[in-house]
């Protein structure tokens, strides 16, 4: 970040930049970590001017500490909890999907339900090619027989396809730009579903490549900043693999990714029924709020109890 150039901040002229560059100081970081007295002597610049310059650059580029009380006020108004519509899943998530966080979970039903019951827009980023509109329609039909409502809900789901990591990063950037320009619309994007993150990241991992892990962490950072800054709930899916040594099932993408989501729910096939039934067992394996180890039965065929109140609008706190 921040290559020094003229006009980057008041007081930074082209001559100063040239002088600094001749002594090996090319970026903001170099200037800040250098010994200013030495630099003043070697470059022939005024010490006080350098100190002032450093102060201005720091003020411009460093992060600003926010007071906890102000942050709390802001969170109270901007955080929403979005119900997934499946009662048992909501219990595991502590009332629903929180905006500002990344949750790992299965997501087809979730997006359909959020689009219907909460009248919110959902962006579905598909990297598997596994999303079919007919399946979404089927889920919505189980929810409501009214065709207009089904159509309305379907309209609120926006599908984007991204089949490699760079496309996905582009999509996320575009989404940020689009949302930030959206001034007072009736319904804004509240949930972003990424299905699945494994499909774009796993080709990069493995071997001696460092870049793969760095790209994965960059994607993680994009998702998290999207969740935080824009105020959406990000849901990602991941696959399960077997641990090489112990043979136990664990989420894919390794240790570094395991730190990224705030909440993780593993879905497992109920013993004896096979995949033909719609029932799965959901385990809560990571949560910032609830103790882990809870499990619930989840019916992903028709999503659970239809008497889940559709009017459970998110704005809690």
């Amino acid at each position, binding site marked *: 970040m921040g290559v020094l150039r003229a006009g980057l901040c008041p007081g930074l002229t082209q001559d100063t930049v040239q002088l600094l560059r001749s002594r090996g100081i090319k970026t*903001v*970081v170099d200037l800040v970590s250098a010994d200013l007295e030495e630099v003043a002597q070697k470059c022939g610049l005024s010490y006080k001017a350098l100190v002032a310059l450093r102060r201005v650059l*720091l003020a411009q580029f*460093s992060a600003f500490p926010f007071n*906890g009380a102000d*942050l*709390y006020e802001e969170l109270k108004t901007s955080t929403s909890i979005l119900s997934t519509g499946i009662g048992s899943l909501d219990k595991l998530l502590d009332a629903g999907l929180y905006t500002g966080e990344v949750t790992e979970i299965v997501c087809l039903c979730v997006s359909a339900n959020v689009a219907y019951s909460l009248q919110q827009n959902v962006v579905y980023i598909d990297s598997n090619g596994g999303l079919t509109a007919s399946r979404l329609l089927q889920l919505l039909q189980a929810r409501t027989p009214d065709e207009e409502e089904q159509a309305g809900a379907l309209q609120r789901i926006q599908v984007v396809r991204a089949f490699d990591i760079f496309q996905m990063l582009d999509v996320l950037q575009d989404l940020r730009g689009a949302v930030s320009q959206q001034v007072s619309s009736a319904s804004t994007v509240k949930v972003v579903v990424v299905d699945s993150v494994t499909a774009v990241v796993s080709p990069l991992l493995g071997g001696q490549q460092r*870049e793969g892990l760095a790209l994965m962490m960059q994607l993680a950072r994009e998702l998290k900043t999207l969740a935080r800054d824009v105020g959406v709930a990000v849901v990602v899916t991941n696959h399960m693999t077997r641990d090489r*040594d*112990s043979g136990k099932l664990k989420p894919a993408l390794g240790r570094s990714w395991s730190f990224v989501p705030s909440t993780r729910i593993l879905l497992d096939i109920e013993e004896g029924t096979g995949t033909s039934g719609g029932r799965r067992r959901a385990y809560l394996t990571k949560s910032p709020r609830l103790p882990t180890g809870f499990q619930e039965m989840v019916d992903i065929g028709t999503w659970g109890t239809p008497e889940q109140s559709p009017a459970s609008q998110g704005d809690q706190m």
Partner: protein
Amino acid sequence: MQFQPCDARQERARNCTDDITCSCVPSTGQGIGGGSQGTHLCRCRAGAKDRPEHRCRLLARLEGRSSLKEIEPNLFADEDSSVHGDIIEFHGPEGTGKTEMFYHVTARCVLPKSEGGLEVEVLFIDTDYHFDLLRLVTILERRLSRGSEEAVRQCLARLFVVSCGTSSQLLLTLCSLETTVCSRPALCLLILDSLSAFYWTDRASGGESVSSQESTLRTCSRFLERLAVEYRLVVLAATQSLMQTAWQGPAGGPGEPEAHYRPYLCREWQRLVKLRMFFSKQDDLKTDTQFSLVSRHLKSNSLKKHVFVIGESGIEFR
């Protein structure tokens, strides 16, 4: 270059008869050692570096910051040496309670003295957007005897949160925190969650040489050391267990995480850490998930184990 503490400079300023400007005079122009408006000052060549707001630093040192023992007696019971300026590392895989421990310590610090807290200020640097203010509020509400909004807000006013997106931003932020720390003598604790968040990104962007990959982290460590030592803060930093350990434990047994620690951050950082705590989780109990932490004092090489559980109101030691 030898660093001269401010008092020594003041001494020299008082005794000096030359009339030359000192680089450590604050911009208001007022002399610190009781001199008149900026005229009688001293050039202290032996190690003068730019230090704004010396008055605050003196005050901070004179006032004395709370001892580490008070912050968490369970963890630091044996720390009889002066513990200001210490850097403590929390290390562990995901889901083992490192962030919870930060909330626990933060709650302890910001609660008012009447509720069993220390009433000091805390600065929380969040590098991976993991900080959950609502969870901290829940913990505070449970711990306050009257969990009213006003009381919680008062506690939260003692907390400052900074979010950094890249390692360069972390570096610049650490550098600019000097002024914040200076102007708030009640600031006693600096929490960094987590230091290893940029590890892979730095490695990829640093090219082939390990030294250039680690350069930002090295400078960050330097700044952290400066903040800790000069302003006598307690620094708690978390690092994640990103590396696969070579050891294969018996199936189902967690084993000793401490013995198989593989340091992967730069040497500068390893040198700074005084106390390292290894967090791990034991899932074998059917009722409550137990967490344990092993703390290792790096100079004296002593090991201590603590066990805790996490409830609604935060961490409870067993």
